């Protein structure tokens, strides 16, 4: 729930993981399934004598994001060194932006707790390189040794920093969902890869000191950590415990945050302009990048409502993932758009979420066939859901599965009308007691007769339909 005294700001590290090469060298970025330290070169390992060279496409992607977040793009931008020691940082400094970041002063629209649209301001968007990764032998505090994997080292990151405009953990999550949504639309980001988005969140209660919860890797984790922090900070205040400004770690397993350092130990990063990189004039690039910007979620949603005549909620659900939106558009070309919207937004997405799989597991062709069967009355709604589940639970190339064949093998087709009628007549004849009860005013007695119909059709009849037909038969017989 929105709480007036909660102040939340986020720093989101976004990996531009759809680039082919790293930010300052030509190393491949496709490292996720590779053995440690196989995607490295003298430059990203920071070997003595090596020099960084900026990946122009990374800058272009960064401009794309900054524009989509409504930032003002700086005409000239500059890299700095942020100096600190850590085993995963081979140069002992990170090349990042400090003064003169790429983008300043943007915003994102989210739906607030009260259902109203809220504008969350973005302070800045800047580029930096990712460090490597430590793998501890055991837990972080008890490990005998740690290993370093530099595959991630030098990946292009964008840091998106918000103003402290968020008022609740849920709003923070909405913001992150929306940001991810926009990034995927821009085709610069795949949120499904490990470490694609890492979030530092700052939270305080009005009048209190701020805690920074570092390095959370899921949107759900951010929501939980913030909820925990609110409770912790409130209870500390109630008990009169003085709060200090500090950095905390979110322990995902225990669902709590723990302190890692207080402000007195704050680092002095000794920022200074990176002498190996000259300032970049990017003013001239911006119009070119702007011209190529794709349709963004909000615009697409409005277009879906206008173009397909679908409900706003459906449009919102369909556009919350670019791949679902594209899927929908393909289907809506060949099937009734409103029917398609309901089935994709309400049913298919639910089944995908339940199985934690992406829309790629289903093909628009399959959806079109299913909608066709529903429209033609060939299968019941229950049958259609069953077809979708069967496809998703199937092995291998599920997008190859033929819905019509599944209907046939699983006997899901709505049985012919005369077969149902025959079963209804037989059932009425056989169930004299129930018929009598019904006529005597016991409405529930009809269920027994419908049950017999279902049994006789071995469940292929639609229960609602059977109910209607039994009722008709009984009333007809009564009138006769």
């Amino acid at each position, binding site marked *: 729930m929105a709480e007036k005294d909660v102040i939340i700001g986020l720093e989101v590290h976004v990996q531009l993981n759809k680039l082919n090469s790293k930010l300052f060298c030509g190393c491949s970025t496709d490292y996720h399934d590779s053995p440690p330290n196989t995607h490295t070169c*003298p430059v990203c*390992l*920071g*070997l*003595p*004598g*090596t*020099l*960084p*060279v*900026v990946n122009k496409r990374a800058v272009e992607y960064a401009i794309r994001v900054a524009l989509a977040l409504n930032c003002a793009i700086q005409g000239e931008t500059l890299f700095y*060194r942020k*100096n600190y*020691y850590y*085993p995963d940082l*081979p*140069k*002992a*400094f990170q090349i990042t932006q400090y003064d003169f970041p790429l983008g300043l002063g943007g915003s994102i629209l989210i739906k607030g707790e009260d259902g109203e649209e809220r504008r969350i301001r973005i302070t800045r968007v800047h580029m930096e390189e990712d460090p490597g990764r430590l793998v501890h032998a055991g837990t972080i505090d008890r490990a005998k*040794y*740690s290993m*370093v994997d530099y595959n991630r080292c030098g990946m292009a990151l964008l840091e998106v920093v918000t103003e402290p405009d968020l008022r609740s953990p849920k709003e923070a999550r909405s913001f992150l969902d929306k940001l991810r949504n926009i990034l995927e639309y821009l085709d610069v980001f795949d949120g499904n890869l490990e470490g694609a988005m890492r979030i530092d969140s700052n939270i305080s209660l009005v009048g209190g000191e701020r805690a920074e919860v570092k390095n959370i890797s899921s949107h759900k984790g951010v929501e939980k950590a913030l909820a925990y922090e609110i409770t912790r900070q409130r209870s500390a205040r109630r008990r009169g415990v003085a709060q200090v400004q500090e950095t905390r770690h979110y322990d995902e397993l225990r669902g709590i945050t723990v302190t890692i350092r207080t402000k007195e130990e704050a680092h*002095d990063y*000794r*920022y*200074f302009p990176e*002498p*190996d*990189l*000259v300032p970049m004039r990017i003013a001239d690039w911006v119009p070119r990048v702007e011209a190529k910007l794709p349709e963004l979620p909000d615009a697409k949603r409005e277009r879906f409502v206008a173009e397909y005549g679908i409900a706003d909620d459906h449009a919102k659900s369909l556009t919350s993932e670019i791949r679902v939106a594209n899927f929908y558009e393909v289907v809506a070309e060949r099937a009734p758009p409103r029917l398609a919207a309901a089935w994709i937004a309400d049913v298919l997405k639910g089944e995908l979420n339940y199985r934690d799989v992406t829309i790629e597991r289903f093909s628009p062709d399959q959806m079109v066939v299913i909608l066709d069967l529903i429209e033609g009355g060939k299968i019941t709604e229950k049958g259609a859901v069953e077809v979708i589940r069967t496809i998703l639970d199937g092995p291998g190339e599920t997008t190859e599965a033929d819905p019509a064949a599944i209907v046939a093998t699983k006997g899901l087709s709505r049985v012919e009308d005369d077969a149902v009628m025959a079963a209804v007549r037989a059932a009425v004849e056989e169930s004299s007691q129930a018929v009598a009860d019904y006529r005597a005013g016991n409405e529930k007695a009809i269920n027994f007769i419908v049950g017999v119909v279902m049994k006789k059709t071995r469940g292929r009849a639609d229960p609602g339909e059977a109910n209607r037909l039994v009722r008709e038969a009984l009333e007809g017989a009564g009138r006769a």
Partner: protein
Amino acid sequence: MLRMLKERLEAGASAEEEVSALFSKINKSRLNAYNVLSEEAALERAREYDRSPWGGLLAGVPIAIKSSISTKGIETNCSSRILTGYIPPYDATVIERLKEEGAIIIGKTNMDEFAMGTSTETSCFGPTKNPWDADRVPGGSSGGSAAAVAAGEAPCALGSDTGGSIRCPASFCGIVGLKPTYGLVSRYGLVSYANSLEQIGPLTLSVEDAALVLDVIAGHDPRDSTSARSEGGYFARIEGGVDGLTLGVPQEYFGEGVDPLVEKAVWDAISKLEGLGASWKKVSLPHTRYALAAYYIIAMSEASSNLARFDGLRYGLRLGADQDWHTTFSDIRAAGFGPEVKRRILLGTYALSAGYYGRYYLKALKVRTLIKQDFERALSAGGADLLVTPTMPFPAFRIGERIEDPLSLYMADVFTVPINLAGVPAISVPCGFADGLPIGLQIIGRHFDEAAVLRAAKAYEGATPYHEAVPKEVV
């Protein structure tokens, strides 16, 4: 000299004989000019050349490389304990270019640790000795390269110059040393000391040789963002003399602190150039007195950041027992760096730290801009074409004489560091002797006008005998 060696090789002399003659000289030498030799590989390469000679500007020519320039497969230790045993898996761009033009790398030369020094005394391998007087320093930090070339232990060498590190040892050892315009030669592969100041350049016995090596190593490199396009063809444009050129003589570079013998030699050189058709006039570089302070702040600041990567985790020095990572890092750094390097890291860290950045580093950058403007003004159209100064205020001093007094060593760089701050090219050529020790003449040019610098140096060299003198350690 390079050109004579090339002619000998082209006429059929054996590269193997040339190279093995060098090694027998090096192995007998007591100068300590090298810290790593690549004898086997060099001889093998020479034999290959003899079997089927290849072409190229430096075909079959042996060359010595300062230990701060990365060579694939050959230890590159920067004369520091912390990098001993480090063998780079890649070649610096200049090394690639030398190899493409057929050169043979014979070894890595001794230097001040991480190029920090003016005397090659801060090397963890001990000081290199001056071939003119083994009790004296060869200058620094490319002292090994200069001593090797002066003593005939290499026909040419590469050095690097951050605040005079090519020109100073060239001056002390009586040879030619060229610091190119910042950006003319790729720094890719040069172990950084102070990125925004340093350049790789040649140390040679003649100006012609310097031009030849520059032709090989200059030119744009996509791996170095600060690298510029080069017009090249320096060797081809070396003739032409100084007739009609105006030389500027900066008043701040003469007088107090300058050895009278040095001053006299430089004035004699100016007269000589006048006799060759140049005219001269006094000019002023008013911010010269701030140059040393600005230089040391910038260089130390950058160094403190550049040298932070040496922690023993991935390469270089490793001590016995590993503890938690910060203790391990600090133990290795404490044991691996010498006192001068530690001093500069600490001062640089201080200068960049919160609260002092604006007072020191930013201020130094502003001074740097003023100094750059001084040079642009003095060398503007209608002003001087070239500037002429002493390279060093005095000849080579004795080993141990100044090492305990860092400040007096820093002062020795007073005529060389402004050139690095401004980024302009400068050469040091021999212009006489003071009590048997060489004196260097510094000729400074406009940005990317190496051609004019080399032409004037060549004209002067052609009219004087100093470059032909042979140091006594060699005789």
